[in-house]
């Protein structure tokens, strides 16, 4: 393997397991997002890769060589911290030049490179500014510039855009991806924001409670979440209990909402997820769901409908048209089998 490999890496802090047998790979030039809720072990993973902490067990390889015993300053990785950790005693120029100076680059080189990266992050002219006088976005860009200035073999970004507002975040995420692509930079991008992860990364590693839940391209993950946790983390809420049974030589999914043909599935109990965009009005086939509309949110070309069914609530996206029901209406929806994902052997979702 020619990039980063984590092999069954585990780490505990004072008897609390933080990472459990985590394995994944990052190819050269690839941008990988570590996605997961806070406390899932993403930052610890970065710390392990950077060499700030040592794994209890498992191995980390870079281009085929084990990193065990290599101190952080000899790994030539870059890490941009969530809290940025800009050195308060240095100005913008010196912060960015920090890593370069440690590599004993001549002054002219240092100047050239700092200028280059500052230009890259759109901070030309900020050289002499005191870091304490910068805005949040500017600080973030200085931190990024500082991390990329020494041209690290692997760049790690820990929630780099966390404290920014949505619009700025979206814009910067796109810029960041362009920038990393342009540099052909191998990068690990840690975030708890799925949209950000999907925007920036080539591949996403979804983590939960110290374990890897799913690895795949944004599309793979979005289209076929492998666990209820992944689905729920991506914002999907329509879960019902279900069971796949065989009758008449065909497999069926039986749910409280009714039964549908569910081809090529082994039998067993589990949980069924209905994708929010999988519902249609007025077509009577598949699962039928009749309920009262409790909320209707206008979302541009779609309407988000909240449907009360018994104790449960479902959420669907319907195309906006005049037929769209209003709050308080009773509505009957058909759910196509194609929009149902069944998670076998998952009995309940503890994650809610």
């Amino acid at each position, binding site marked *: 393997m020619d990039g980063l490999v984590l092999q069954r890496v585990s780490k505990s802090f004072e008897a609390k397991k933080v990472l459990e047998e985590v394995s994944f790979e990052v190819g050269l030039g690839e941008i990988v997002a570590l996605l997961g809720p806070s406390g899932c072990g993403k930052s610890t993973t970065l710390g392990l890769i*950077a060499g700030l902490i040592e794994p209890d067990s498992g191995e980390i390889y870079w281009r085929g060589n084990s990193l065990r015993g290599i101190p952080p300053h000899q790994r030539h*990785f870059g890490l941009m911290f969530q809290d940025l950790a800009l050195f308060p*005693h240095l100005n913008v120029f010196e912060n960015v030049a920090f890593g370069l100076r440690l590599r004993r680059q001549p002054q002219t080189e240092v100047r050239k490179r700092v200028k280059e990266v500052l230009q890259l992050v759109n901070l030309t002219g900020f050289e002499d500014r005191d870091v304490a*006088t910068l805005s949040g976005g500017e600080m973030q860009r200085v931190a990024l510039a500082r991390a990329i200035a020494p041209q690290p073999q692997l760049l790690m970004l820990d929630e780099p855009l966390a404290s920014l507002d949505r619009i700025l975040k979206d814009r910067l995420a796109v810029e960041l991806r362009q920038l990393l692509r342009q540099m052909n930079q191998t990068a690990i991008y840690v975030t708890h924001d799925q949209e950000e992860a999907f925007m920036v990364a080539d591949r996403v590693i979804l983590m939960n409670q110290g374990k890897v839940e799913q690895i795949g391209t944004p599309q793979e993950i979005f289209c076929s979440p492998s666990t209820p946790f992944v689905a729920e983390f991506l914002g999907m809420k329509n879960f019902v209990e279900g069971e796949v049974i065989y009758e008449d030589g065909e497999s069926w999914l039986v749910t409280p909402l009714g039964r549908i043909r569910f081809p090529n599935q082994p039998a067993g109990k589990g949980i069924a997820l209905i994708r929010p965009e999988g519902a249609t009005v007025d077509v009577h086939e598949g699962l039928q769901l009749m309920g009262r509309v409790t909320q209707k949110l206008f979302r541009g070309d779609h309407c988000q409908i909240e449907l009360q069914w018994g104790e449960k609530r479902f959420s669907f996206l319907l195309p906006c048209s005049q037929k769209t029901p209003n709050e308080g209406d009773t509505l009957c929806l058909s759910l196509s089998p194609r929009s149902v994902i069944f998670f076998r052997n998952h009995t309940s979702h503890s994650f809610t």
Partner: protein
Amino acid sequence: MRTASLASSWKKGSALAWVLPVLFLALFYFYPLGSILFFAFERLVEEGGESLRALNLAYLWRVLRFTVYQAFLSTLLTVLLGMPAAYLFARYEFRGKTLLRALSTIPFVLPTLVVAAAFNALYGPRGWANLVAVNLLGFEEPPFTLTNSLIAILVAHVFYNLTIVIRLVGDYWSRLDPRLSQAGRSLGATPWQAFWKITFPLLLPAILSASLLVFIFDFTSFGVILILGGPRYATLEVEIYYQMSGLLNIPVAVTLSLLQLGCTWVLTIAYNRLSEKVTRPLPLAAQRRVVSRLLKPHQKVFAFLVVAFLVVFQVMPLVALVGRSLTYAGWERGERGFGVPTLSLAAYQEIFINRRASLFYIPPIQAIAISLGYALATLLFSLLIGFPTAWFLARQQGSGKLERLRRWLEPTVLLPLGTSSVTLGLGFILAFSQPPFDLRASPLLIPIAHTLVAFPFVVRSLLPALRSIRPRYHQAAAVLGASPSQIVRRIDLPIVGRAALVAGVFAFGISMGEFGATALLTRPEFPTLPVAIYRFLGQPGEMNYGQAMALSVFLMATTGLGMILIERFRSGEVGEF
């Protein structure tokens, strides 16, 4: 990420940072102290414990009570009066700030006899204050009397130690982000509430640190009690001196020294417990952002009051001293009225002449050079030993032996300050006059003795600053390619740079003004300024007094200039912190 993990990989570095202080303390503190202890013990056994049985315990108890009482009062006053000045220096920029700060540090280095002379020149029966009061304000009797009273002791202690509070607390304050208290204000706190609820708790580590140092200084006070307090007041240190020098009763003197040491130890441990509770990493703020000009009227009034206080209280005695060195008592003798003193440069001319061809004549330039040499050596040694010590003490070392060592070393570092200098001085003589450590002839013995007193100061100045560095900075630097030693050099050192300068100023000052240990250890060929001053003061005659005053002015000037230079160093070498 848990921060403890990087710290744990630093453990190996810390593990060796303690070697230096432990070695230093073992060789230059515990070994001489142990020597004199052993000697005293042998004596006691020889005489069958006679001298201890003869101790007047009720009297001793009185002495101890008074020692604690005056030290407590003095410390309280020093902190209360020092805080406004610390605030002014930390938050505002105004003309003459550097000069005023340097001037208010000078008292710290002055020998007690010189301070007494300064006070006398100002508040004495024929001092300037009384002169003005009687001649211009029409008082019948001189209104100020400042000798032989508890008030004199308190005033002198505040005069001496105010600068500790101003510098230690002021330095910490200036790194405190003002937005924190602004945030409090925006949440509806009055300025007073914002101070008590936000600023004060955040400053507490520095305040405690300064208070502890001030208290130990006051607790072991000798010259001030002796000269300004008068015979009615005795502290443990005075009693130790009496037993040692007056009665040659070494066993009792050493026993009392141990008592004094025990008190210091208990106090320091209590302080450490408290300090660990109140210290937390702080977001640092750049100086430029913190310091502002005096704009609003109430700021100007405040600044005026603080500056006026400092000028009257800290600077006026110095001015009076300069005045005293330039005039002589040309008033009509015997008259209890007040004449006008005569201006004369004679004392200054005289110090450059070896009138009596004395073997022990000290050319002032030589004394200045020697004093400066010792002071710079002390500065170097104490920073060299103090920085690794503070660095090691700054963070918990996990569990096990190292943490136990840390917990033990932290109070131990302060012990030399709480040790009677007569006792330790004799210990030095006992320990370093014979093999294996025959250092009698070494001119380094004096800077080493000074370092013993200065290095606790350095550690105390650096600790709050080092503790306030977020471990995240270390991680960030490590990932950027900084090795542990580079992290120390490029992150820790510059961030604590200002605190290190404060520490350096004190180390310099302590050495410039130290007399007790110097008198015991110095060789006549290498006299310091204080030694030269005391030599003149020991003889009768107007010119002797005048020359002592003139040399005191040299001491003041040299120290003041030295401190200003050290402070200048800040803007050049180290960052904005």
